[in-house]
């Protein structure tokens, strides 16, 4: 055997021994604090109510709505097609196949943004991706689509277009083209709970 081969093999083995005796590093799968800070500062985790409404109306197969409120609140009403993973069970391994995957865009929501944001942070620390937060939660969703104000005549076209879109969304939810109230009086909104057609597809595994 050529001396060159022996020499190169010896170098490989020496390096192998060096890496084998190096002390092991922390092998937790959690995200590092510096990385976590960058993730928290990045606001792309928030999806606007308009974007989420668009997903719902177009019945996007690759978006999974996840209600992190209690099962009782979920049973009362939720967004169409949403599944329930209560905040206190968010780290339950039986939900990992839903929360840690790269096929579906998960949208976490609660009444406001607090519980959904906390859920997102926990999932991010676990290193799970593809999870987003409904900005403002259900409160903002209702305020945007069911308590909206009519645009003024002098408002730019973008505002009028947005109003038309939101009116369409309201119609989708209520089945009514009614203009609704423009004051701040709270109207009881009956959100239709629609069974997810692709329930058996959830999680992709």
């Amino acid at each position, binding site marked *: 055997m050529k001396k060159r081969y022996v020499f190169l*093999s010896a170098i*490989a*083995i020496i390096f*192998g021994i060096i*890496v*084998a*005796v190096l002390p092991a590093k922390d092998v937790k799968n959690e995200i*590092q604090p510096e*990385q976590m800070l960058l993730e928290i500062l990045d606001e792309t985790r928030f999806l606007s109510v308009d974007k989420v409404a668009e997903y719902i109306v177009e019945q996007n197969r690759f978006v999974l709505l996840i209600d992190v409120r209690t099962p009782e609140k979920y049973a009362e009403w939720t967004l169409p097609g949403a599944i329930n993973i209560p905040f206190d069970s968010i780290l339950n391994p039986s939900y990992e196949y839903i929360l840690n995957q790269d096929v579906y865009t998960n949208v976490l929501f609660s009444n406001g943004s607090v519980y959904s944001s906390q859920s997102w942070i926990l999932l991010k620390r676990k290193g799970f991706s593809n999870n987003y937060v409904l900005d403002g939660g259900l409160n903002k969703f209702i305020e945007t689509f069911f308590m909206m104000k009519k645009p003024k005549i002098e408002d730019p076209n973008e505002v009028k277009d947005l109003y038309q879109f939101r009116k369409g969304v309201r119609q989708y939810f209520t089945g009514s083209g009614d203009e609704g109230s423009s004051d701040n009086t709270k109207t009881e909104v009956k959100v239709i709970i629609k069974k997810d057609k692709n329930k058996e597809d959830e999680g992709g*595994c």
Partner: protein
Amino acid sequence: MGPLTELGILNHEGGILMAFIIGIAFGFILEQAGFSSTRKLAGVFYGYDFVVIKVFFTAAITGATGLVLMNYFEVIDLKLIYVNRFFPPSAIVGAAIMGAGFIIGGFCPGTSVCAAAIGKIDAMAFIGGILLGIIIFAETFPLFKGFFTANPKGNMKITEVLGIKDGLFVLFFILIALGAFATVHFIQKKVKKVEY
């Protein structure tokens, strides 16, 4: 410091540009190593040329040693490196199909692009076959979905399964590679040399 894209040092577009540059360099090295020749690639299966095994094993042990050392000196954080999810049945069937394609066509996907880049018509036909396969697979995916996603094992690493340190596994892997080099050297001596 790294991985650059995961830590936000390099944005998505920067990552794509980096991948492009590395891809060009990778293709250049493949071509220089003679991987655009189907005879050289098929030589592994017939026992007259093992340069493919030698190059890939060398790349693997160099890369593995470098990553463990860089992780130790905190140049890169191995925990942030994406590990593909493991589905054993589809991995086994996929590997068998890949192997069959390799011996029939004389190329693997990377080397076919490399050979097509220097104008080899058989490589272009091979790429056409790959694209056709991708389309058929995508269109018939619902039929295979159950099998494709069966028995998911998550983002599994062999060192986690064996419960050993990354560095120790690299040492074993180096020994396996050296053993493979010696074995193929011996086989190549026994098999009649093929001129091409």
